[in-house]
């Protein structure tokens, strides 16, 4: 059974039979970009795979070309840093040392040799296969709706898969007009549109201030920023703050913008309900105790036509966990990758940089990406780490400490589930209400998010629990487990059927055949 029924020929981007490149980087955000251009500059042959159409990731976003935005930098800090990275990307692409594959969704990374043979022999240099679904340009007209299978082979892998936004649900959070805080920022950066005229910004984490400042600067009204944590608690961690004057200045700049626009900052408060019929028209804001439990009698209504909400970021780990990379728990209870002083994961040949090691921001991601590239070059070429590596390490340690301090302050309190009524949908894809999850975790005997999922379908839908996972884990009374999504994005069955068979990559597949009487 080594035949395959695929009718799809190898597309131009498919490199399943090509010799492996030195380094494959997954993700072209700050960490991945920095790593890719640094590695290419060190003479490595690099492939940069990214789900997005343009480099920059979630952080550096380009206004859509049709908008003819004259000054994208107005919405970004450090746009010049990105502009420089992009120039280097173009230069290395021209020389052919770096190949940028945009619109490539990597769904798994696997070692080329099956596990059994790996154990017996003295390990040869590992070769990794990165399997991706590639978007085809408009009009490509393939049967799978414009997607083709691509396999990239590489000697080393760097996972710079970033993070996604944590959402804690509340009654009314599925109303039109309620958007993710990160989503609101993305709308502003890439579409130059505001989510509404009067946008309440709520949740927890430093992103809220940035989002509110950007909305206000772009002409929107922000009636309030509602932060569940207590900012004065930053004062309990002065060391990490004082060693990061740049971060403080960033926060102060947002604060100044908010002051200038008369935006109220309510700390230790939460939006506990959104109201409206066709669209959000108002939100209920309540004061919280230390555990984020609403205080009785503190509720008030704030009229608005949009709500941007988010409760911090969660590292996106499924490619790494599928490879068996070790994880640890960060200060806010979220799993992140356990990385060493050179950004190496616990799996030899696999590095990671940026938010996957714990949420820390773009500046940290840039430092880690660059550091990882030096380490990869050292592993492949035996070169020494340059003196700059020590500088990067220092920067990384300082910014990591800051990230940990922020995570401690913004860690969701256990009492947040008190603002959910039983009818609130927790899983939006499968429309599973909180009551069903409570029943599963109570009388039906589920003790973790996985069993809750099996009993209720929460997390079984299109987003595979990215949206509801942290909330479901809380309701099940468990700490969130590291992501396990062996397929990190949907993959057409035709692509799976066309995978190279066991052993060396398969040649051009023959036409479909009925099932053969095999395996006897």
């Amino acid at each position: 059974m080594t035949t395959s029924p695929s009718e799809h020929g190898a597309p131009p981007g498919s490199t399943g039979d090509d010799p492996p490149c030195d380094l494959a980087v997954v993700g072209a955000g700050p960490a991945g970009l920095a790593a890719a251009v640094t590695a290419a500059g060190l003479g490595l042959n690099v492939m940069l795979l990214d789900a997005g159409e343009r480099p920059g990731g979630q952080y550096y976003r380009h206004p859509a070309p049709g908008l003819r935005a004259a000054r994208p930098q107005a919405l970004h800090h450090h746009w010049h840093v990105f502009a420089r990275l992009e120039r280097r990307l173009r230069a290395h692409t021209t020389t052919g040392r770096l190949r940028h594959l945009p619109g490539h969704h990597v769904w798994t990374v696997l070692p080329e040799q099956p596990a059994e043979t790996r154990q017996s022999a003295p390990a040869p240099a590992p070769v990794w296969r990165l399997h991706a679904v590639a978007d085809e340009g408009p009009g490509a007209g393939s049967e799978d709706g414009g997607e083709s299978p691509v396999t990239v082979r590489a000697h080393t892998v760097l996972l710079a898969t970033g993070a996604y936004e944590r959402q804690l649900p509340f009654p009314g959070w599925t109303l039109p007009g309620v958007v993710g805080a990160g989503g609101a920022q993305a709308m502003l950066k890439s579409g130059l549109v505001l989510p509404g005229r009067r946008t309440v910004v709520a949740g927890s984490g430093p992103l809220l201030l940035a989002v509110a400042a950007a909305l206000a600067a772009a002409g929107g009204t922000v009636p309030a920023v509602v932060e569940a944590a207590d900012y004065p608690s930053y004062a309990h961690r002065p060391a990490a703050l004082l060693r990061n004057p740049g971060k403080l200045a960033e926060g102060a700049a947002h604060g100044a913008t908010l002051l200038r626009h008369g935006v109220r900052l309510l700390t230790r408060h939460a939006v506990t309900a959104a109201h409206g019929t066709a669209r959000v028209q108002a939100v209920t804001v309540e004061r919280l105790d230390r555990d984020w439990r609403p205080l009785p009698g503190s509720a008030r209504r704030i009229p608005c036509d949009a709500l941007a909400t988010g409760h911090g970021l969660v590292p996106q780990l499924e490619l790494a966990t599928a490879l068996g990379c070790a994880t640890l728990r960060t200060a806010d209870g979220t799993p992140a990758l356990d990385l060493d002083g050179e950004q190496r994961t616990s799996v030899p040949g696999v590095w990671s940089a940026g938010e996957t090691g714990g949420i820390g921001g773009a500046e940290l991601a840039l430092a880690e990406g660059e550091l990882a590239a030096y380490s990869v070059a050292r592993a492949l070429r035996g070169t020494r780490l340059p003196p700059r590596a020590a500088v990067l390490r220092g920067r990384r340690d300082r910014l990591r400490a800051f990230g940990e301090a922020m995570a401690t302050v913004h860690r969701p309190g256990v009492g947040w589930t008190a603002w959910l009524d039983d009818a609130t949908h927790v899983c939006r894809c499968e429309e599973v209400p909180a009551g069903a999850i409570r029943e599963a975790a109570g009388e039906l005997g589920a003790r973790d998010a996985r069993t809750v999922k099996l009993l209720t379908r929460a997390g079984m839908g299109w987003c595979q629990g990215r949206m509801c996972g942290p909330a479901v884990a809380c309701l099940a009374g468990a700490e969130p487990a590291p992501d396990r999504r062996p397929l990190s994005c949907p993959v057409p069955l035709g692509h799976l059927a066309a995978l190279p068979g066991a052993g060396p990559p398969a040649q051009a597949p023959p036409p479909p055949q009925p099932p053969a009487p095999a395996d006897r």
Partner: protein
Amino acid sequence: MPTGNPRGPLDAVIVGAGVVGAACAHYASRAGLAVAVVDRGSVAGGTTGAGEGNLLVSDKEAGPELDLALLSTRLWRELADDLPPEAEYEPKGGLVVAPDETALGALRDFAAAQRKAGVETHEVPSHALHDLEPHLAPGLAGGFHYPQDAQVQPARAAAQLLASARRSGAVVHLGEEVTGFLAHPDGTLRGVRTPHRELHAPAVVNATGTWAGDLARLAGTHLPVHPRRGFVLVTEPLPRVVRHKVYAADYISDVASGSADLQSSAVVEGTPAGPVLIGATRERVGFDRTLSAEALRRLAHQAAALFPVLAGVRAIRTYHGFRPYLPDHLPAIGPDPRVPGLFHACGHEGAGIGLAPATGLLTAAVLTGDQPALDLRPFRPERFDQAGAAQ
């Protein structure tokens, strides 16, 4: 979590809250026994939660396992009336297809023997296959329809069976691992120990599935249960494109194979929630949790060969489980003569969801001292010792 009320001393402790343990608890409590269920994790936290929910008679050759499956088929139908609809019992029927005349001939002989044993089945000629499954690939030689094949959502079914047991008085301790056995001086068991308590009972039922060999060892005896890994692919939600459980005839030989190598023949079926399930591969690689591209390739290839329309459909998830494999593909059910007080209800390989009710009913009969509905000799837990001694 809330638990039931013990009515005085326990009659049995059931270790394992998978579908088999839950069924044992359901039938034992219904028979009036006071039981406790202990599991180190959640309900359905092991292989049950990774199952497809196949209730198949079609894949079993005439013999003791088929008898067990036929009894279970009847019991599942009763349970469907008793349990809440959340168990998603669906008597959808199975369709086994043959690619050519040779395979069809073999299938015909297989079905004839099954019919003698009480299975309902009839041949579907090539031209009529599309009346049953409109999207099936053209060019198949024919097939057999098995109306008794059915499906449940396994985790929900297990949870509902356990909830039903609790309503009859069973006590449930989840998140507690059995760390030791309590025994009388003569070696007869008198209960189990967990980090939180001692549970005293004259009978302990080993319903720990793939981990049953470990529990047997803890009790001082031997049961050669090994993990046999399976991958399942789940597609995006679709309108009903697959109506039955559909698989190619070679699935039957894969199930019966003792080889450790990767076997695969996709069973394709729709679910009430919309996704199509494609499963499953069989290979003995220990508890290896890494993704196998080869397993996914074969499942996708075979599913698309049966239903060409699926080639353009997306898989949104894959998962794996470890079936409790015993060398002769039969479960161990009944008392263990080597350790008085120990009973086994485990080793069902890939058929545990289907065979759970019969296993529960038989176990309850053994515990109450009633005559079991089936001859238990083929399932004796100590049979592997004798096989070893005879060699």
